[in-house]
């Protein structure tokens, strides 16, 4: 039965994803992609369990590699998204016709 409920969660979350992501303007499609990439780094949660569950030596090593990869994904993903959004996010600059300083 648990798996039926999991399917519910998956489908409803997918539905929400469709609804929201369709409204993201093309302007922000690159940040959107890096954002979803960062969020899917949530595999980290599974990797933590694999690395710390004492499933045996091989499993711990594989789990450890998984933690390193997933953590890289999460850290890099969120930082780069923030770096991009900082360029869009700030208060809108003065109108384009504003005179430049100087001559």
């Amino acid at each position, binding site marked *: 039965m648990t798996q039926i409920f*999991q399917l*519910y969660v998956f489908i409803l979350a997918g539905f929400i994803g*469709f609804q929201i992501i369709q409204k993201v303007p093309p302007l922000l499609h690159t940040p959107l992609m890096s954002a*979803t990439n960062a969020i899917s780094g949530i595999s980290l949660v599974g990797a933590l369990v694999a690395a*710390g569950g004492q499933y*045996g030596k091989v499993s*711990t090593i594989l789990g450890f590699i998984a933690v390193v990869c997933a*953590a890289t994904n999460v850290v890099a993903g969120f930082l780069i*998204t923030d770096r991009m959004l900082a360029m869009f996010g700030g208060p809108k600059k003065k109108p384009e016709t504003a005179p430049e300083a100087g001559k």
Partner: protein
Amino acid sequence: MSHLFAFLRVLEEGPQINSTQDLIVQASYLIASIFFILGLRSLTRPDSARRGMQQAAGGMLFAVVGTLLNSGILTYQWIILGLILGAIAGYPMAMKVPMTAMPQFIAFSHAFGAIAATLVGIVEYRHAFTPNELTGQTPGLSHGVAAALGFEVLFGALTVTGSFMAFGKLQELITGRPITFRGQNAVNMGLMAVAFGCFAMLIYQPDTAWAFYAMVALSLFLGVSMVLPIGGGDMPVVVSLLNSYAGLAAAATGFAIGNNVLIIAGALEGAGGFILSVMMSKAMNRSFANVIFGAFGSGAPAAAKEKGEAKESKTISAEDAAVQLAYAGSVVIVPGYGMAVAQAQHICRELMELIAKQGGEVKYAIHPVAGRMPGHLNVILSEAGIDYGALLTDVDDANRVLQTADVAVIIGANDIVNPDAEEDKSSPLYGMPIFRPWTAKTVYVIKRGKGTGFSGVENPLFFKDNALMLYGDAKNVIGSLVKEIKALDDSH
């Protein structure tokens, strides 16, 4: 409403909550899920986006801390070392990567996430058939969990090698041209069929270890062989599709280990990647299947040559072009990936400011598939300090502005302004929504040489009566335009 009740029931019954500790863990996952969804929703508006995604990052932190409280975790030294190494690797990567290299970076990051998902799948599979040290019993695997693990490694492994291939193509470590051989699609289809056969075997008989590992190996191979025949110009679709696959792998992990936050985050990414790949295919007027199996751009150059009439396009000097730009009331710049390659975005802003100073207005027409990933050029221009208000991201809007524009300047773009897409039914581009820069009074085309675009298709725009060519490196050409306009300004 019934959905909502069902959803609440899932939260109640799905994961087993046996103690306060488990309750805290589940609460942290719920909070993380909510922040993820709100974070993505914030991306619908540029001014709220940054804060929303910072909250999503906070949600991730919640989920990680929550997991660390999980009673299933017994040793922490590997975890802590892994987290530190990951942070050390991720930080400089994210801070140093230039915006032009964003598609490669995202492909690379996908590969990392997918490696994690695949390895977790393998660990879980091994664990299911390892005898318990105390009781000597193996936990075993239900058919359902076997299916989830199968999905996880199938999509995970495919994404790992597929993303590395995409990375190689985008970074130009491998040629951007499609690499094809006879019967390629048949071979891929055959391998895929074998992989699905193993998958079916695994579900039927979860303890068939060879089927599981054969599937991983086949999937790794398929990732390479499926991306090889796809041309560099189609990378926006591929990167989006890999985005979707990475999400599905994460969701499958959630199914396998019974973790809702993984399912939710994976579903969100799966949906996002899917929508973007469909949008990109539409923007190129091509079906999904055509992008994946079409090996676009490998045969086209030969076909284009036959048609080539002995037409000459007209050129204009930077001096003359500068005079017209200086007195233009409305200028639309149509950049393509060539602008990014030439690193001409900063000098573009300078040109824009000079024209604005003379009283003209400059807009940028950004095609959905311009660049190497969805929305790529918006990021590159914003990084150069160009206000996003000047970016026209809708093809119809941009065409309306182009009709009344004095000058349209094409910088390193080709296919997205090719009139054949509207006029020539035999063109491979036919039907693709394009910009109509020729409706402006004058069109300047800044181009490195006389070659064709990524699709390898000849562009009749260059032979139109009002089209004037400015050959050379985009950065140098615009640099000389800027110099000339400044000189004009000074002489007044």
